[in-house]
């Protein structure tokens, strides 16, 4: 039983990272119907930036946090200006391909600047694990889960009460009408990209603190796809929950079937789920008018 519980907890900890990335996918998909294939790479880039900051400032927590925020705003603005805005009015497929190209680009540039070896994040405290009902938890993992919950609540409140969030939901429902109502779509895109970069950056720094920082951070972005699909691409909180489910499923598959199947368990799950519910568990069904 404690083996099972340990697997579930480890799954939740990884799943929280997937969930954060999936929230980023969902926020961008909601406003622009585009899947951002560069989400994992953005997470890696901001992770590396804050790693460099931490290296030079003796891992001072406020400065690292500041670097994540500044990095996210910078990356979000740059992407919106040079990738998204020129492609407005083009088919969605073109913009998706742009984000794929962006992913390849970021990966290459990060490889050029920081090299391909993984590093330990400076100041990543590996405190004594806490034992509860036979489950071993690292303090940082608990912190990660707390951040995850806080982000979920924050994003929910933002979409529910903030005027920009409401405009986002309006645009998701009908972009033409919300344009007519005076919503500035380009400003909305900017906000969406910054928020999703910010969430990705936070996930990146936490991931780097728990494990390490290296080029394989980009793969986490790909492994978060099943989470976003499972929850439904246009449902932000559904995607966040999907992350937890995928994390737990991966760990259970790795623990009970064979460790090799951990990496693909999530993908198998979405192949099956999509056959039954083609729009994800919480996604909105597309009803087409002919």
């Amino acid at each position: 039983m404690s083996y099972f519980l340990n697997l579930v907890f480890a799954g939740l900890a990884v799943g929280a990272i997937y969930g954060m990335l999936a929230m980023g996918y969902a926020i961008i998909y909601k406003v622009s119907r585009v899947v951002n294939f560069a989400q994992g790479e953005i997470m890696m880039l901001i992770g590396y930036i804050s790693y460099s900051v931490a290296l030079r400032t003796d891992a001072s927590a406020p400065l690292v946090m500041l670097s994540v925020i500044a990095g996210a705003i910078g990356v979000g603005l740059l992407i919106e200006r040079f990738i998204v805005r020129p492609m407005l009015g083009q088919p969605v497929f073109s913009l998706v391909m742009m984000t794929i190209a962006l992913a390849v680009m970021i990966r290459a540039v990060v490889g050029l600047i920081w090299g391909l070896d993984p590093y330990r994040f400076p100041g990543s405290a590996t405190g004594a694990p806490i034992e509860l009902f036979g489950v071993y938890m690292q303090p940082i993992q608990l912190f990660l889960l707390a951040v995850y919950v806080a982000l979920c609540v924050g994003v929910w409140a933002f979409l529910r009460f903030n005027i920009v969030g409401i405009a986002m939901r309006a645009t998701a429902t009908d972009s033409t009408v919300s344009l007519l109502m005076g919503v500035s779509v380009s400003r909305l895109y900017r906000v969406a990209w910054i928020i999703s970069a910010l969430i990705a950056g936070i996930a990146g720094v936490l991931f780097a603190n728990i494990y390490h920082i290296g080029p394989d951070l980009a793969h986490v972005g790909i492994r978060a796809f099943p989470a976003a699909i499972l929850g439904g691409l246009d449902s932000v909180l559904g995607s966040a929950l999907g992350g937890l489910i995928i994390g737990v499923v991966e760990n259970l598959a790795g623990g009970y079937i064979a460790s090799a199947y951990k990496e693909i368990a999530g993908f198998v799950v979405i192949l099956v789920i999509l056959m039954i519910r083609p729009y994800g568990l919480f996604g909105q069904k597309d009803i087409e008018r002919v």
Partner: protein
Amino acid sequence: MRTRTYRENYRELTELLPYRSSWNWYALLLAVLVSLPFMVPTYVMTYVTLILIAAVGAVGLNIVTGTAGLISLGHAGFLAIGAYTAGIAISTYGWPIPAAILAAGFVSAAASLLVGVPSLRLKGLYLAITTLAFSIIVVHLINQWEGLTGGSSGMPVGRPDFLGIPMRSPASMFYLTLVIAGLTVLGTLNLLRSRVGRAWAALRDYDTAASMMGINLVRYKLLAFAVSSFITGVAGSLMALNIRYLNTDSFELIVSIEAIAMIIVGGLGSVRGAILGATLITVLPDFSRYVLSLFGGALGSIASGNTAEIKGIIYALVIMLFLRFEPDGLAHQWNRTKRFWSDWPYSRK
């Protein structure tokens, strides 16, 4: 002055080549390619072999993504299935080369049903991610299935003689590739001008309307996936025969992206575009590395020390610039240039 717009009957509209004289030009191109091994040094010939293999793969992907409009990010998976099928057929079971190539195509086509069936219900990006998931699963399973595929340590592939013709030399590999590339292009062009090809274009443009016109969506979507992955599987088998050593590193995600880059650069839905795109994308990394090395000094050493990164940056830049400034690709550029010269001196800029 000749014009492309005037057609007298339906047959002229679907003809393979618009003019009699075009046949002469393509015969000339074929003659040049056939005599290539006698004219150029071996490394140029092996390079052309690489381009032809890439062109076969790009033509394959172009059918499903360009013509039928079903985005596939998983063609590295089909490529891997084809390559390993051919490798196993030759190395383990001692099949002759043509049988192995056909087997590669058919096994890939059968595997494509796994992706094709969800594609009936999924739209756009959901489908793209499903195909991505498929290729990740395929590569992972190949790595796990050590008894059959050699796992992560890889698998050597021989080139047995065929009907007494030795296949070991680069020239014989070049001719084999040329024959298959020629058959692929001819077959695809004929398919695209038939009912099947027009049905694919119709379901790409508006699938609801297409199904109202009496096009069986289930059948044609599955057919698009099957034909496309058949060709991609054949390209994979050529790859296996060419490298003679298989390893899953050759089928990473970047390969699918490379293939997508080829058809975007070339122009979606155009066979000529796929070939042009395959040529450009294959040549570009080495060409730009050469240019960077001319600068010497720091720039040159960066270029020689980080080949994978340079390649990534170039692919990314090429995709971005083409999407931004020439979304119709090289095929469109080709037509414009041709029209400019055939209308000259009355051509408009």
